[in-house]
């Protein structure tokens, strides 16, 4: 029998509610499977290396260039007509020398040929007269049917997911990590710090994010179009009581779609129980760079190529989200098409015309 510490729901740790250093601890009392007996304490206190580095830095500050305001320059406000590049980062220009490219070539060839082989094998396997996609389209998906798309049990599965936080961009002091656990799940954990870097450029800080980077061979996009006939997004997670956000990214080739994403909060209850979070696709609202847009429309899953889980709940402290799988779920009783009003906007609106 094992007593293990679980992170408290984070609303408790707001400075106004509990004095810092308060020792409330939530305990769960459980009987565990044998393989977990020797595992290390899972949640450890994170140190903040960047902060130390900044404090120690002498002379020139270790910060990025201050943003300039000009009449003719691109505005820094993230709206869909204003995305600098598909990455969404002003001045993003990864340049490689020929030497670097040649060095990288064998690894790329190996990776790409592996992907091609996998795709050919898949194609050969799925060659049949039965057209499952067509059958789904004409409504043969059953009520309560679920399909698990992403698992996190192997290193290969986990490598599709990239994590990042503001300190990676020199824009804050948060840290995050994404790693597997002993029970075949993955843990997205770290520390959120809302402290702003004093460089006159960054206005808000304290975020961490996890994003799917799954592509077909030759860097072609992989769309989540097989999800289109399902009604709900299904996540099996175990959180810490914080509210995360799920984002379905749908950038296409035109520049005004580069920032498109559809979001909905993912609330967790914390504690040792797993939660099966079913979020209807009809409830996702349209955001660009995290900002809710005036003109709303339903998420089109045929255009979605990535999914992400982000945390920016403005509360300092550790966070931890354990994920078992991500998939889709079909509820035939869910007939709602789109949960928000779709007003007809005047001709002169923020989107232009």
């Amino acid at each position, binding site marked *: *029998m094992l*007593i293990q510490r679980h992170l408290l729901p984070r609303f408790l740790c707001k400075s*106004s*509610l509990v004095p810092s250093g308060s020792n409330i601890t939530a305990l*769960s009392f459980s009987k*565990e499977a044998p393989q977990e007996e020797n595992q290390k304490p899972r949640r450890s206190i994170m140190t903040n290396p960047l902060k130390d580095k900044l404090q120690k830095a002498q002379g020139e500050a270790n910060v990025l260039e201050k943003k300039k305001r000009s009449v003719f320059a691109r505005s820094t406000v993230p709206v869909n007509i204003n995305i600098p590049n598909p990455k969404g980062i002003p001045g993003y220009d990864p340049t490689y020398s020929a030497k670097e490219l040649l060095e990288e070539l064998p690894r790329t060839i190996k990776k790409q040929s592996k992907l091609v082989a996998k795709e050919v094998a898949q194609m050969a396997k799925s060659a049949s007269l039965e057209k499952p996609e067509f059958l789904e389209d004409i409504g043969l998906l059953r009520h309560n049917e679920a399909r698990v798309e992403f698992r996190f049990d192997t290193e290969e599965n986990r490598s599709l997911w990239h994590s990042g936080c503001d300190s990676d961009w020199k824009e804050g002091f948060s840290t995050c990590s994404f790693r597997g656990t002993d029970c075949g799940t993955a843990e997205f954990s770290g520390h959120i710090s809302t402290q702003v870097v004093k460089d*006159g450029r960054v206005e808000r800080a304290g975020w961490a994010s996890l994003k799917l980077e799954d592509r077909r061979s030759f860097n072609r996009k992989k769309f989540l179009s097989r999800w289109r006939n399902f009604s709900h997004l299904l996540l099996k997670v175990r959180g810490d009581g914080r509210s995360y956000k799920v984002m379905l990214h749908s950038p296409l080739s035109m520049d005004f779609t580069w920032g498109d994403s559809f979001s909905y*909060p993912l*609330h967790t209850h914390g504690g040792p129980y797993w939660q099966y979070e079913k979020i209807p696709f009809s409830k996702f609202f349209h955001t660009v760079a995290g900002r809710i847009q005036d003109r709303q429309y339903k998420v089109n899953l045929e255009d979605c190529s990535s999914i992400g889980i982000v945390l920016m709940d403005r509360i300092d402290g550790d966070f931890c989200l354990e994920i078992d799988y991500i998939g889709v779920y079909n509820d035939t009783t869910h007939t709602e098409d789109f949960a928000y009003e779709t007003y007809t906007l005047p001709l002169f609106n923020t989107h232009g015309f």
Partner: protein
Amino acid sequence: MSKTFFSLFRSPSVQKGCRLASNAAPVENRLVHIENQFESVPPPKRDKDAFMGAIAMFKEKRGRGHVEFINSSLKFIKEYGVHKDLDTYKALLNVFPKGKMIPQNTFQKIFLHYPMQQNCCVKVLDEMEWHGVQPDKEIHDIVVNAFGEWNFATKKIKRMLYWMPKLKYSNKYLDRRTVEGKSLSDCELAGVALKMMSRDPATNVSLVKFKNDIMANEWIVLAQSPSQQRLLKQLNAGDELTTRSAEPLQEFVKEEMDEDYTNWYEDWLKRRESSKRTIHEQQNEVILALGAIFRYDNDTAFRWVEELQKTNKNLENLRIRLRIDGKSLI
């Protein structure tokens, strides 16, 4: 953000709790940096009244420098502890003069009329949104009176009024009214947290307070449901707990479309058996009890186990391993 505003204004003659540096000019005529207004208040006196006093004083004296005043007061909003208070934001936005900045012709409507003021207003509203303060109709009217019905700053408050109430109660696990704007004690918060965590609706949450001369505030919160007690009772004495793990929970069983009904009775029995599984029997563990303790160490956790033993007699026969501050205690 880090821009310093060097606008100066005449310090008013009466200042509440402010101590001014000596200067050659008479007190009421000296020029004082805007931030002095907030900095000069000693930290223990920094509260809502002092903040509102500063705003009232500014409004009384000046017809200009609104943007500078609001920018510098936003810097101090957290220090004065008013960042979650709607009245403060209303008072701040009321600083803007009414009517003067409403666009009168089409060109003014198309282009950002009074850009500094509008951007400043958006900044105040953004700060409000960041701290999770819910806007109301009055704050919308304040902005409309200052900037007009469909100006850029007004659009911001309209968006906030539309979206924030929509997503306000989206969290089904926590009713925010139980914690918002209330000063709950540690054990009350622990109770709220345990109710949020325990997914069994039959869970009893109980508070045990220790009467102790040295430490007055010692408490333990227990959360256990009858089905968890039943699960605990079923464990055998001196149970080799590592050997009896729960079967992996199959939430969504993969169904094959076969028409073989020869084993229908066994299948039916199996299905009946699997539906009996309680919520506490999770994938890799069986959760038998939850709790919260006032201090984070093995001794306190052991007291929690002792409290649990009063209701669960079987716990005496089991081997319990505490692993809280790194060292294990059998």
